[in-house]
């Protein structure tokens, strides 16, 4: 008797998804996979609740994991068919993961979402082969963070928006004294830096071409700052990508390169005034790469329509304002960027001007499915040229040969 009751219940439960698919307005619970620290959870939950406020039938269940874990879990969950309805995606990882997402172009076309409301560079960063796979929440270029107090003490002018590599190097030289370095280098500088100098790491077929003369030259300029001019400490091959931020916070280096997404943390850690400047340019005009993150709908989701409704709210103006004023993200929505400038970046000089200048000079951030591998090889091999052990050409051809 009891057993047959359980059986009947199980039968009813197993047929539920079918009923749900028929009746559009039946309540749905969407899962949402996101990365973040435990203390971010409240912020993301606030966004999930925003969805339910607007669509009482849609409940969004947040699944939070740490940044590194997130990227290990995502492919495993996908392979075992348990990927969430809403998947968080970073532009630099898009080439590895677009296949698990639903193209959003048709959804966008049939909705009120205006592509022009978002920063252009991040919309292309979240697209693959001309199809949009995610709607962004944040965006940002790599830029120079500097210690304004040290600049003032050394009698240096604040960096101009179109400062050149020579200006940057001269400042770093002036600031290198009394056991502190003018600049703290880290892995990503060897990608964002050369691009700002006008170099290309890809050929026209979107394949890595690291040994072209332009890239070797620009790469060497950055390597020489450490290897020859000793203006920066060396980073180790096992150092994480933000190795210099700690040295910057403790006052051991006066400049380092990072993105606006770390500004709130950087400010909390320092006891001096922070300034931000664009990356130095070469002889040509400035050009910058930007990255950012957003949310897509998994290709296997059972509730794609509901998920897109949720996505509109998550990437909508209200959510952008919440994230911007909390300092978690420089919103990808142009109109809401003010929330970040007036909130998180209130005490940092020239943030708005600098970023607007940088957005006006962005160049597409070219990436392919070997990007991850490339970044790891940069971390592994660049230290060899920083210690003067190998020449930049040699290191670049070593990296190139391992990216078949």
């Amino acid at each position, binding site marked *: 008797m009891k057993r047959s009751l359980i059986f009947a219940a199980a039968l009813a439960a197993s047929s539920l998804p079918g009923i749900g698919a028929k009746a559009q307005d039946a309540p749905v619970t969407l899962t949402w996979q996101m990365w973040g620290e435990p203390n971010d959870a409240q912020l993301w939950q606030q966004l999930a609740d925003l969805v339910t406020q607007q669509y009482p039938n849609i409940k969004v269940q947040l699944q939070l994991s740490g940044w590194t874990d997130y990227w290990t879990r995502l492919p495993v969950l996908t392979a075992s068919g348990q990927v969430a309805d809403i998947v968080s995606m970073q532009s630099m990882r898009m080439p590895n993961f677009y296949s698990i997402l639903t193209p959003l172009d048709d959804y966008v076309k049939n909705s009120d979402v205006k592509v022009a409301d978002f920063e252009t560079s991040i919309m292309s960063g979240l697209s693959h082969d001309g199809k949009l796979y995610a709607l962004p929440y944040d965006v940002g270029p790599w830029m120079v963070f500097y210690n304004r107090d040290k600049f003032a003490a050394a009698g240096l002018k604040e960096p101009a928006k179109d400062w050149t590599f020579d200006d940057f190097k001269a400042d770093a030289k002036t600031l290198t004294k009394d056991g502190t370095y003018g600049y703290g280098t880290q892995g990503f500088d060897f990608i964002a830096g050369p691009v700002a100098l006008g170099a290309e790491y890809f050929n026209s077929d979107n394949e890595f071409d690291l040994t072209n003369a332009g890239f070797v030259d620009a790469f060497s300029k950055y390597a020489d700052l450490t290897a020859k001019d000793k203006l920066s400490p060396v980073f180790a*091959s*096992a150092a994480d990508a933000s190795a210099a931020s700690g040295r910057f916070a403790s006052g051991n280096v006066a400049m380092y390169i990072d993105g606006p997404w770390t500004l709130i943390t950087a400010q909390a850690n320092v006891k001096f005034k922070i300034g931000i400047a664009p990356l130095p340019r070469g002889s040509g005009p400035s050009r910058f790469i930007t990255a950012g993150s957003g949310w897509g709908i998994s290709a296997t989701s059972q509730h794609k329509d509901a998920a897109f409704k949720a996505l509109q709210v998550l990437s909508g103006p209200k959510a952008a304002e919440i994230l911007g004023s909390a300092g978690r993200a420089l919103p990808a929505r142009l109109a809401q960027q003010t929330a970040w400038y007036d909130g998180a970046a209130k005490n940092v000089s020239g943030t708005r001007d600098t970023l607007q200048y940088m957005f006006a000079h962005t160049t597409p951030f070219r990436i392919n499915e070997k990007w991850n591998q490339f970044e790891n090889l940069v971390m592994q091999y660049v230290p060899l040229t920083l210690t003067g*052990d190998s020449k930049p050409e040699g290191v670049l051809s070593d990296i190139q040969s391992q990216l078949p």
Partner: protein
Amino acid sequence: MLGKHTDMIARPRPRSRKWFRGEGWTALFFLLPGLIGIVLFLVLPILASIALSFTNWQLLGTPRFVGISNYTRLFTTDPQFWTVMRNTIFFTVEYLVLNIVISLGLATWISSLKIGQRWFRVIFFLPTFTPLIAVAMVWMLIFTSGGLFDSLMAALSLPFSGVLNDRTLAMQAVVLTSIWAGVGYNTVLFNAALDMVPATYLEAARIDGATAWDRFWKIRLPLISPTLFFGTVMTAITSLQVFDQIFVMTKGGPGSSTATLGYAIYQRGFQNFQMGYASAIAWVMFALIMALTALQFWFQRKWVHYDA
């Protein structure tokens, strides 16, 4: 004669039948949780990884059968593979020799002590309790540029600094860390074996005029050789699989100077999403460990003495 024979065959039969009717099933029932665990999380993944090593599975999408091309690519075109192989063997040989020599030395020294034997055993065994990841993190901070090790070397006017960024010295730093973390286990093992050597043998040798060196070399060492063999085989197997120290301290760098098979599997599988290729490397590592272990078993006949 015939009757006796059939009797011998017949006798175990009812016993075995009874075994599977009674306690056998009970035993199986109680073993089942463990057995399911082993099949599910050990046997199946092992079988799956053999199958995967013949595919191009990238974690996402469906795997496609590619024959032995992962293996041919590994041995012929992968520019890193032979470096990785050389690093692995280099690490294993150096670490194994140092570990055995140091732990045997420490064990002999401890067993010669009149007082405090127990304390020294605990002191040297302590690092074995510490998670290797934590040990590696502390040593990474010691070896980091401008860290404790650098100031120590500067104070001694020795030309070693920034070892983790040096192609040749980075591996030595990893070996040193591994020795610190791993030597205690063998020390305790060998020390126990040395204590088992009958004092009467040593006493008799002493009366016959054998020197301390003779007693060590001709009596104690042969008598502990089975333990020494066990220690050597186990240490060789774990050092061929070295991963944690590399992952924390060098990430295979600088360049590829500390990249080992264990690290290569992680890197290909979980960073580059080449699961099929990573499985192929794992099976090459398995073959290498099997071969070296077989070799050790072959050689043991020459130097291991089992006290009959």
